[in-house]
C-alpha cells in the first residue's frame, strides 16, 4: 500500500509538469497579450512593461525561470492586478472557493445520497419516479439559469418578507450571503448523486449476499445500512473524486453570478484579460487538486471493497 502510494505520487509530478508545460506554451505561442487594450499604450511604456515581466527574454528562458519560481512557491506577479502576486490572489480566493465548495458538497451528499436510496428501495413506485424526475430536472437546468432564478425569487420577489436573501456579494462570508451560492452549486450534484446512488443501490440489492443477509433474518434497515450501502457507495465515490475538484470549475459560474471573490472568478477574468500568470496559477492548483482527489478515490476503494488490492 505504501509503495502504491509513493508510486502514484511519483506519477502525479510528471503529470503536473506536463500540464504546466502545455498551458505555458499554448498561452505564449498564440497572438495577443495581456497589454493589448482599446487605447494604445505608448511604445516606451509598453517596452518598460515587457521588460518588467521579462516578456522579451527568449521563451525557453521564461519557461525555465517560471518553473524555477514555481519550485519556490512563487507563481509570479499578476499582469492585471498590478500590485498583487498570483500567490497572494490565490491565498485570498482559494479559502472562499474552498468553503463554498465544501458546504455545497456536504449538502449534496446529505441530500442526494438518501434521495437515491429512497428511490432505489421503492423502485418503480411514484416515489422513485419523483426522485428520478427531480434528478433529471437538476441535471438539465444550467446552473447559471438556476442561480438567476433563485436571485429573482429570494432577492427580488421576496424582498419584503422574512425569506429575503442577499442577491449577491460575499460580505466577509456572512451566513445569509452563503445560502444561495451554496444551494446553486449543490443542486446539480444532488441530482447526479441521487441518480448514481439509485442505480448502484438497485444493482446491489439484487446481489446474493444481500439476499443471504435478509434470509438470515436481519432487519431490513440493517441490511441496507450495513451490507448494501457500503458497496453501493463505490460508484458514488468514483463520481465524488473528480466532482470535488470540479466544484472549483462549477464555481466559476456561481462566483460570477453572486459576485463572490473566489478563485473561479479570478480564473474567468484572468482568462478574458490574458493574465497569463493568474490563469496558470489557478489551472495548476486545480490540476493538483484533481490528481490528489483521484488518488484519494483509489485509496477509499480499498476501504469499501475488500477485493481491491494495491500492488
Amino acid at each position: 500500500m505504501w509503495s502504491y502510494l509513493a508510486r502514484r505520487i511519483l506519477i502525479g509530478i510528471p503529470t503536473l509538469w506536463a500540464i504546466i508545460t502545455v498551458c505555458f506554451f499554448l498561452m505564449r505561442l498564440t497572438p495577443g497579450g495581456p497589454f493589448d487594450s482599446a487605447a494604445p499604450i505608448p511604445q516606451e511604456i509598453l517596452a518598460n512593461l515587457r521588460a518588467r515581466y521579462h516578456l522579451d527574454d527568449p521563451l525557453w528562458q521564461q519557461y525555465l525561470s517560471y518553473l524555477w519560481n514555481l519550485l519556490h512557491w512563487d507563481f509570479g506577479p499578476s499582469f492585471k492586478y498590478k500590485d498583487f502576486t498570483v500567490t497572494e490572489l490565490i491565498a485570498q480566493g482559494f479559502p472562499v472557493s474552498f468553503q463554498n465548495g465544501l458546504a455545497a458538497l456536504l449538502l449534496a451528499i446529505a441530500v442526494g445520497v438518501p434521495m437515491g436510496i429512497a428511490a432505489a428501495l421503492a423502485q418503480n413506485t411514484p416515489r422513485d419516479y419523483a426522485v428520478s424526475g427531480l434528478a433529471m430536472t437538476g441535471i438539465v437546468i444550467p446552473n447559471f439559469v438556476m442561480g438567476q432564478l433563485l436571485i429573482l425569487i429570494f432577492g427580488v420577489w421576496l424582498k419584503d418578507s422574512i425569506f429575503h436573501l442577499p442577491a449577491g456579494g460575499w460580505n466577509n462570508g456572512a451566513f445569509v450571503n452563503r445560502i444561495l451560492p451554496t444551494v446553486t452549486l449543490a443542486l446539480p450534484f444532488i441530482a447526479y448523486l441521487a441518480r448514481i446512488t439509485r442505480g448502484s443501490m438497485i444493482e446491489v440489492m439484487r446481489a446474493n449476499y444481500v439476499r443471504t443477509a435478509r434470509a438470515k433474518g436481519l432487519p431490513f434497515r440493517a441490511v441496507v445500512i450495513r451490507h448494501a450501502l457500503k458497496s453501493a457507495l463505490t460508484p458514488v465515490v468514483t463520481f465524488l473524486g473528480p466532482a470535488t475538484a470540479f466544484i472549483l470549475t462549477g464555481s466559476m459560474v456561481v462566483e460570477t453570478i453572486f459576485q463572490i471573490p473566489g478563485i473561479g472568478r479570478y480564473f474567468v477574468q484572468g482568462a478574458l484579460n490574458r493574465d497569463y500568470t493568474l490563469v496558470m496559477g489557478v489551472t495548476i492548483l486545480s490540476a493538483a487538486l484533481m490528481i490528489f482527489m483521484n488518488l484519494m478515490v483509489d485509496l477509499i476503494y480499498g476501504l469499501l471493497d475488500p477485493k481491491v488490492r494495491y500492488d
Partner: protein
Amino acid sequence: MTDVNLVTPAIPVPDVIEGRSLWQDAWRRLLRNRAALASLIILGVIAFLSIFGPYALAWSYDQIDWDHVEAVPPSLALKHYLGTDSVGRDLLARTLFGGRVSLTVGLLATGVALFIGVTVGAVSGYLGGKVDQVLMRFVDLMYSVPLTFFVIILMVLFGRNFILMFLAIGSVEWLTMARIVRGQTLTLKHREFMEAARASGGSTVSILLRHVVPNVLGVVIVYVTLTIPQVILLESFLSFLGLGVQEPMTSWGVLINEGAAELEITPRTLIVPAIFMTATLFCFNFLGDGLRDALDPKDR
C-alpha cells in the same frame, strides 16, 4: 370439408422465415418504452423545426424590426408569434436558429469525441501491450487535467470560432468513450469469431473495422446519446462566460443567457429558449436510458 379448416394454420407462415437481428430486437424494445418513444418524437420535431422552421418564418434571426425596436409581446399581426427580444429581433426565429447551432455543436463535438474515442479505445484494447500502456497512461493523464479550464483557455486564445468550439469540446469529451470501448474490446478479443477472423488472415485494420467496431456499437450509441446533452450544456456554459458563438449568430446558451439578464422585465425571452433546450436535454437523457435498456436485455 371441416377438416380443411383444421389443417389451415391460424397464422399464415411466410415462405421464408426471417430471423430478427439484435438491432431489430433492440429497436422493438425501444419503441415499446413509452418515455423513449416520446423523446424520440419530440427530438424529431425540435430538429425538424430547427432545420426548416427559419425558412418558414417572416423574420430572420438577425433581422431587427425597425418599427418596434423594443420587446414586443407576442403578436399575430406583426408575425412575431412569440414576440421579440429587447432590440426587436423575433424570438421564435432566434430560438429556432439557436437550436440549429446548439444541436450542430452537440452533434459535431460528439462526433469528434466518438471518432477519437472509438479509434483510441479499439486500437488500445485490440493491440494491447506497449501501445495499450502508452495510450491508457495518456488517457489517465488527461483525466487529471481540469478540462473545462482547458476549453476556456482554448476559446480565449483562438477566438470565438465555431469550428474550434466543437473541436475543443470534442477533444476533451473522448476520454470516457475510449475507456468504455477499450473495455469492450478486451472482452471481445478472445472470442471465437475473432480468432476465426485472425485465422482466416484478416488484417488488423479490417478486423478492427469489421469485427470490433460493430460489436462495441451498442454501448457507444448509449454513451453518445448521453454525451450530446452534456456538450449542449457545456456550450451554454461557455456562452454564459461570453465565449460562445458571436453575435448576430446565436445558440440556446446565448439566448438563455440574454434572457436571464432580462428575466424581470420579459421572462419569455428566458422561458422560450429554456423550454427548447431543457426539453432537448430531457429527451436525450430519456432516450439514452431507453437505449441502454433496449440494448442490454439482461437487466430486465
